[in-house]
């Protein structure tokens, strides 16, 4: 092997970290060479050149195209399906319905209905599966699907969860099932708490339904080789899809391979297989050909999940000195036509964010004839924050205290809502508030807005919000395999998906930190159940804290083996060796150092394989990320047009692993929060049909490059968490979008004196509120 130029392979002006003794956890990194730096993605070339293969790019010469026929009604029973003429149409190879042999399968992922069917003859939401078609071209498949004759019994529907409990409303499930789930939490004595308060306020709030709609449509390619199924799937977790598909089809896990190396965003909507996944698999089986089934953009507004609408009421009591005495929170939410997390975690921030001895939360999930919820980037939390953070502002105004100061008075160091009140490993909430406020110029900005010209119809305002995310510490299981090759390059094998968050890059950086190899000499293989190791889904902001310690462990395993064989070769004890810049250096005699790729033993072996497992989380402690976000807005009080001028976000997500991906998550999360606050809203035709009328991307409005503030600053607060896990990282992907909408509403209040209790904040709502406000004054 010719002499490689080491500078190409190694990075480091100081040695790699010392390996821990076997059985001991490694020490936290001190000064890092690579971790924390703004290093570009390891797969940037693929993404930026168009070379990356996403699910929709997979093709075969004999591929067929599949489409799904979904119910066009909010609530209907399928009396009969006639596919005869549809089947005869040009290019059609197969049509699948519930009565097709082998298709009468149980779909066990509709919560609360153990025996729910894949093809349910009672379609309780628009888009629920009726048939699948595959043909030579997508056009032919669509034409055929439209030609399928379905005899529906169209039923009355309920589409507004606020009316679902009304006995005059149609109950989604016969005979009278309207409520899917209720939850109650309490601590202390609410009555006593309110009695102690100097100020008691009560307000109702509502957030509208938000839909993930990542830019890449949902879909998969299914291909059978004999009895073995391969699925290329746009997903946040290939092993989970494998599990679901094997379960539904009744085949062993070993016979299902799921590949999902590149995927175009998920935000929770791609955590699970869809009915379309099984349809594609069955069509592929029926025809003996690979089937590509991609949902149309319109379908993604119907059946891929959402952040449920939340109707909240919050009653809060506070003493004049800023002590919270009581919080009573109720929420009415909906997960759609089946129980599916419609109230999930909406009350968590009320339970846990601020110190309060007397708390009660009552949540009711009702059923409506609409598409099912699924976890959407911090489920429940942005809704809860919308209520809680606005109430905190209202309270602080009543007691004459600065909103930041008020929050600083009420920061717990432990989780109040959990049994045993476990402390947090670290809480940087105080620093997020203080440093965020300072960097934003909070005090001066508040003074300025208080003194602004009252006659100017365009008014400035500043507002903020704080949060925690109820998990974010990750946890086992995860298995990582790391191979060190004889030339000093490495192959990292991991099962976790990279949703675009930068997972692959960060894991390569962990290896680089431990072994000194340059990140671009580390090839990352991921997201393939056939060739990569088991990992849980990328969601819940748990990927970095779950995988990075396991990767570190694998790297340490490699290092240990490396030192062992080097020790034998150099006849020096392993504990006296250091590794720097690709050289094994005996501490006692540096002249005996040898380049990695010159180590005879390594050349002979060819490869060293290290295995890392994710160890357990700290006992009796919880790992949570925290944040505070600040924003400035300008409101045209004549029209209700709001422009966001700037946003500052101070986040405690533990150690910053990669500064570029970290900041991107913050900016992206704030943008999604702006969508919830101002532009996004699923609209159902409540009056006549219950159908979704906002089913394209100009009726369902995502923020564009002109809608976001031109200045979004991300401040990283690293509390130096040495207990959370061996890399000190906490989750980031979700906390970034939790306080955003509330911060905007608080800023609008600061500008106008009008409390916006319902999303979205837009001219439709504000122009009317402004006009009413003017006439009242």
């Amino acid at each position, binding site marked *: 092997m010719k002499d490689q130029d080491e500078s190409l392979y190694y990075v480091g002006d100081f040695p790699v970290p010392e390996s821990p003794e076997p059985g001991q956890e490694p020490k936290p990194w001190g000064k890092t060479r690579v971790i924390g730096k703004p290093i570009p993605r390891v797969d940037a070339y693929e993404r930026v050149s168009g070379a990356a293969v996403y699910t929709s790019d997979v093709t075969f010469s004999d591929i067929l195209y599949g489409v799904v026929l979904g119910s066009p009604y909010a609530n209907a029973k399928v009396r009969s399906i006639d596919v005869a003429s549809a089947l005869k149409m040009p290019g059609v190879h197969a049509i699948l319905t519930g009565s097709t042999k082998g298709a009468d399968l149980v779909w066990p992922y509709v919560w609360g209905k153990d025996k729910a069917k894949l093809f349910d003859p009672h379609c309780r939401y628009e888009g629920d599966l009726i048939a699948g078609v595959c043909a030579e071209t997508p056009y032919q498949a669509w034409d055929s699907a439209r030609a399928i004759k379905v005899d529906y019994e169209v039923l009355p529907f309920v589409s507004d969860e606020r009316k679902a409990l009304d006995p005059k409303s149609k109950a989604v499930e016969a005979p009278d099932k309207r409520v899917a789930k209720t939850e109650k939490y309490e601590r202390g004595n609410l009555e006593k708490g309110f009695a102690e308060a100097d100020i008691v306020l009560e307000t109702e709030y509502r957030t509208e339904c938000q839909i993930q709609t990542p830019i890449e449509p949902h879909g998969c390619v299914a291909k059978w080789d004999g009895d073995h199924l391969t699925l290329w799937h746009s997903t946040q977790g290939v092993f989970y899809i494998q599990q679901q598909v094997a379960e539904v089809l009744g085949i062993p896990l070993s016979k299902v391979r799921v590949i999902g190396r590149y995927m175009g965003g998920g935000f929770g909507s791609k955590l699970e297989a869809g009915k379309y996944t099984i349809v594609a698999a069955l069509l592929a089986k029926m025809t003996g050909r690979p089937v590509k089934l991609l949902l149309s953009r319109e379908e993604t507004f119907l059946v891929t999940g959402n952040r449920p609408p939340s109707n909240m009421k919050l009653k809060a009591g506070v003493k004049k000195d800023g002590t919270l005495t009581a919080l009573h929170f109720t929420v009415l939410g909906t997960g759609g036509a089946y129980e599916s997390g419609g109230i999930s975690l909406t009350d968590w921030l009320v339970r846990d964010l601020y110190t309060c001895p007397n708390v009660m939360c009552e949540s009711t999930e009702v059923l409506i004839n609409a598409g099912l919820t699924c976890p959407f980037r911090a489920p429940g939390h942005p809704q809860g924050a919308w209520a809680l953070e606005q109430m905190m502002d209202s309270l602080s105004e009543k007691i004459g205290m600065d909103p930041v100061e008020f929050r600083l008075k009420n920061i717990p160091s432990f989780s109040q809502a959990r049994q045993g009140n476990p402390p947090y490993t670290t809480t940087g909430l105080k620093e997020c508030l203080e440093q965020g406020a300072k960097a934003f110029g909070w005090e001066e900005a508040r003074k300025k807005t208080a003194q602004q010209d009252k006659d100017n119809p365009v008014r400035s305002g500043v507002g903020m919000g704080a949060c925690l995310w109820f998990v974010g510490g990750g946890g086992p299981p995860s298995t990582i395999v790391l191979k060190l090759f004889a030339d000093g390059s490495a192959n990292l094998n991991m099962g976790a998906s990279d949703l675009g968050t930068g997972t692959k890059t960060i894991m390569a950086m962990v290896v680089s930190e431990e072994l000194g190899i340059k990140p671009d000499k580390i090839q990352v293989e991921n997201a393939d159940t056939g060739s990569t190791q088991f990992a849980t889904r990328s969601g819940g902001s748990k990927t970095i804290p779950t995988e990075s310690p396991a990767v570190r462990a694998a790297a340490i395993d490699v290092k240990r083996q490396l030192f062992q064989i080097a020790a034998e070769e150099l006849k020096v004890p392993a504990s006296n060796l250091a590794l720097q810049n690709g050289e094994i250096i005996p501490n006692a005699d540096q002249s005996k150092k040898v380049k990695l790729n010159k180590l005879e033993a390594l050349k002979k072996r060819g490869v060293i394989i290290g295995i890392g497992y994710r160890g357990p989380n700290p006992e009796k402690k919880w790992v949570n990320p925290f944040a505070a976000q600040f924003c400035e807005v300008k409101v045209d009080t004549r029209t209700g047009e709001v422009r966001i001028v700037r946003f500052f976000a101070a986040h405690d997500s533990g150690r910053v692993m990669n500064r570029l991906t970290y900041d991107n998550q913050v900016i992206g999360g704030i943008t999604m929060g702006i969508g919830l606050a101002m*532009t996004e809203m699923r609209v159902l035709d409540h*009056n006549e049909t219950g159908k979704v*009328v906002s089913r394209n991307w100009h009726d369902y409005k*995502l923020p564009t490059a002109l809608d976001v503030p031109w200045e979004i600053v991300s401040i990283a607060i690293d509390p130096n968490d040495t207990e959370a896990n061996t890399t000190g990282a906490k989750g980031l992907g979700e906390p970034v979008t939790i306080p955003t909408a509330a911060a905007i509403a608080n800023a609008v209040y600061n500008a106008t004196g009008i409390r916006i209790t319902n999303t979205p904040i837009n*001219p439709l709502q504000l122009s009317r509120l*402004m006009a009413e406000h003017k006439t009242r004054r």
Partner: protein
Amino acid sequence: MLPNFSYIRVKSLQEAVEASQGGGTHILAGGTDLLGCLRDQIFSADQIVSITRLSALKGISQTSDGGLRIGALTTITEIAESPVIKQLFPGLARAASEVASPALRNRGTVGGNLCQKPRCWYYRGEFRCLRKGGDTCYALGGENQYHGIFGSDYKCCIVHPSDIAPMLMALGASVKVTGPRGSRNVPIENFFVLPKDDVRRETVLGSGEIVEEILVPKPPDGLRTSYRKVRVRLAWDFAVVGLALALVFKGDKVELGSMVLGGTAPIPWRSKSAEHVIIGHRLDAKISLKAAETSVKDAQPLEHNAYKVSLLRAIVEEELNKLAQG
């Protein structure tokens, strides 16, 4: 998913006229609305006639009387970037720059923009509404937050989606239409059709008739134009309300004035009563306020769009005050 259609690309306008008589034929210019309509199955198409190579229909030029001739195939981008339009009719350039998105402006044509189909989400959705031959306007009792406050006669409450049409109407433009019986000049205010007259069509174009060009009269001395679009997000969004103003000032008095509203009615909505308030007067704050109130006097809001009344009132007042300052 586009239906199967046959396709011809014509070499002359005459050829296009001949090819497009009879039903099932649609003209293809930029295609940004046509393809969307076909995908949404608003109508079927047996034959597509592409007029994209008719160079005579492209471009902006000055007419002998000092006005402008804008070929129907002129793209929205060309209008937004045109130095002569920016100079003579800045409101028109502004209106064009606010249409849709850059990529859509690059392909969309002014002819297509005038002839575009409504964006009512019932019309574009799986609803067989009045305009598509059914017997219900779903918006009247339904989700009408984006629908009109004028001109529906409680029959069909779409709003015209164009930004350019209100501005052209305010400028007194006319449309040259060529068809089987030759050419005719249709003043823009006669180009659009109210639901009460015919709920099945949006323009007066007959079978085989094609928009050839738009003629804008010479700008009088003292002309000031503006276009204001209120929207939910700042790009690729239709007007929640839109306001096109073309006022001719003599000294500080308004000699002539045209005020046309977008996003409020099935056709660009001329606000003649508000114009009467300002014509012949100095445009001071009181007059602007009075004009604003007059502009919404006859509004017929629906259940969810009463906000358009206060919004419209606000921007009429604001824009008149702005134009008064030059």
